């Protein structure tokens, strides 16, 4: 199938809770998972293809994902190998703004980007959480993620003692 054709046909996807979304082929091909699926359908299949069911993505998250892929559909997407090498020094201001959302949405977005195999989106969203953790104390991280301290005083003392040996000067 020629995926570089100038016209950009409509494609529909259905979320886990049954909502249908319309987007374009060029956008949806940013998802490695869907790209594989469409390539298997073969020549001319796209026009006759029905809506693609995405059982692991709910409608709220799918809406966010579609917003992102439509914005980036004309950009050259780096491969996962290229992303691994990248030292994360520069984020497109549009993406920075796009990622302003609460943690629960972010978790769903990460899970969806992982399932749909969109390396750049996975990179952006996981990095976003990492940046929230950066330079925080253990207590600050606990309140960030809303988790309980399950160490006993003896245990934490032992962990801290060994940690002292790992700290950079």
């Amino acid at each position, binding site marked *: 199938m020629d995926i570089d054709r100038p016209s950009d046909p409509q494609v529909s996807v259905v979320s886990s809770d049954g909502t249908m979304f319309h987007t374009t082929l060029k956008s949806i091909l940013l998802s490695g998972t869907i790209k594989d699926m469409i390539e298997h359908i073969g020549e001319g299949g796209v026009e006759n293809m029905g809506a693609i069911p995405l059982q692991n993505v709910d409608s709220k998250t799918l809406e966010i994902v579609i917003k992102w892929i439509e914005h980036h559909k004309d950009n050259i997407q780096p491969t996962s190998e290229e992303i691994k090498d990248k030292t994360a020094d520069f984020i497109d201001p549009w993406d920075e703004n796009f990622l302003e959302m609460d943690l629960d949405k972010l978790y769903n977005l990460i899970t969806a980007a992982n399932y749909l195999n969109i390396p750049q989106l996975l990179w952006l969203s996981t990095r976003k959480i*990492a940046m929230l*953790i*950066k330079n925080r104390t253990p207590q600050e991280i606990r309140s960030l993620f809303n988790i309980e301290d399950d160490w006993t005083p003896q245990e934490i003392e032992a962990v801290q003692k060994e*940690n002292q040996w790992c700290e950079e000067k």
Partner: protein
Amino acid sequence: MDKLPKELWIEIFDYLKAKDLIALTECCKDFYSIIIDTKLMKKFTLHLKNDNFEWLGERKYSKIEIKECNDLEKYINIFSAVGLNVLKISIINIQLNSGYLLKIFKCCPKLQEFYFSNVKIFEDIELQSLDNNKIIERIVFEDSSPVIFKLFINTSVKEIWIDNKCSNENVDFIPLRDLLKIQEYLKELRLAYFSINTNLFNDNVLDFVPFRLEKFSMNNVYLGIESVARFHTFLLNHKESLRFIFLQSPFINVSFFNQFYFLEELQLCHTNAFFEPFENIKKLQVENVSGNFMDKFPNAEELTMIYKYGVFLGMYGDLVKLTKLEKLTVIDSKIPELKIPLVKKLKLKNVVICHKRPFKYEENSIRELYIESCNTIDWIPDYLA
């Protein structure tokens, strides 16, 4: 944390440095076990100094540093316990006997990277080469006893960095000539601050075949005048594989660079740009290079300029000729007037700008801007402020 599967937490934590991972281990037991059981442990270095250390026996360290220790014997237990996973060892400011060094290496069979800095060896047992099937990624050797090289005679080393800035010891006798096995694998060689008078180049020591050097750097290496021709031959022998050369050395005539027109990456220091254009260069760093060098690199995409002693010399509007430039870094300079092509990434550090609007830019042309210790930021376009 059940919001995400473990693999995705690992991806998240992978962006963080040891300092933040340490905070996470103290957070809760789930995070602790994710970190100490996975590839993330590679970011930790175990630092052994003159203190008492209690090892809990859970963590698999892959990097160890020993620094300024007098009583090394007490650490042998730790080495035998964690050594199996250790890939990188750093030994710093230590005098030790060779028997002890061999003991350490015996405990760490997987070592791939060695860093010696100011290590003095007393050879009580003759040093033997490590396992001859071993592939070593890198040896960094600073101001240490040359006898250490005996350890690597039969190993396959990819990179050797030698820097003898502070040492009075004569390293001319480093047995590079004997390192036949090393030569087969060596891809990168960096030499700094020592004198190569006659031995290294003149006796065909570096003429050895068949290793394929990809990167070569020579910084403040004194090359005896009679070695220059040999040195040129040496570099030409590696012409096919070399991708990067860095030279900062008197007695090297830059015009000889003309034969390296195929290079893609180049660093120049304290030199005059008298050579022919390098059409292939994509990444360039110049330090105190005078003259109009811009014409020589028409296809450069990345340029770093360092001018420690002040003004760009001969630098009036030339940069505009670099039409393919995407990333520009300027450090320690005074910019009288500078017209810059439309770059995407611009980094300025310790730069004095003497002109009101030194930079030409269009809306959204600069996508990344980094400024540190500069005199004025008046000219920063609104959309970046």
